[in-house]
């Protein structure tokens, strides 16, 4: 299990590849579901040029670790990887990665989506969007 907060930009699929290479899922894993959230150049109707992500050092890591551990237990997963960016994020950069390794597809799909929804609704991160008309805190995540 790996949960990590990243100050530097990362490529989500490269991270999955590196993580898989460091583990031994081969033959046991039948199903991997993953979700990658990336930085768009619009939100609702605003043109966004970049974003700054704030977090709660200590609590954010603790909270994400709890989400991952509970998912592994609930769905009997082989492993979970969660990465999340903080700091200044440019258009097109990856913000979040959630991946589940399982023997079966149902567990992989359900755990990946549930972890992502939990992260969105409760992990302490806050986005401030920088637009051509100034900076603005995002007030609320859209429901999934």
């Amino acid at each position, binding site marked *: 299990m790996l949960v990590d907060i990243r100050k530097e930009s990362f490529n989500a699929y490269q991270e999955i590849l590196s993580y898989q290479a460091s583990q031994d899922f081969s033959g046991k894993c039948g199903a991997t579901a993953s979700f990658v959230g990336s930085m768009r150049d619009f939100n609702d109707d605003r043109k966004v040029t970049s974003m700054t992500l*704030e977090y709660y050092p200590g*609590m954010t890591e603790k909270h994400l670790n709890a989400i991952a551990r509970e998912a592994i237990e609930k769905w009997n997963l082989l492993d979970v990887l969660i990465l999340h960016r903080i700091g200044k994020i440019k258009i097109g950069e990856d*913000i979040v990665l959630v991946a589940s390794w399982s023997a079966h597809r149902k567990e992989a799909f359900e755990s990946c989506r549930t972890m992502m929804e939990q992260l969105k609704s409760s992990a302490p991160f806050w986005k401030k969007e920088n637009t051509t008309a100034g900076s603005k805190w995002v007030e609320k995540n859209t429901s999934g």
Partner: protein
Amino acid sequence: MKVSVKYFASLRELIGEASATVEIEENTTVDALWLSISERKNVEFDNVMMTVNMEYVKPGCRLTAGDEVAFFPPVTGG
């Protein structure tokens, strides 16, 4: 007794500081602490989220000396 208080994101900007050490009476609840802070700082904020020692708590949660309390707006990660 003393507790440490942290603020994040838009609430940090409204309060004008990221953290503080606050003297409170024993058995103070987390929502009573928020009420006194928001009145003193003249800050209005709906939907404030509250954590004690990095766990979400209900408004009636009673504080203990040395607790780390945090107040912040709805989270917007992912």
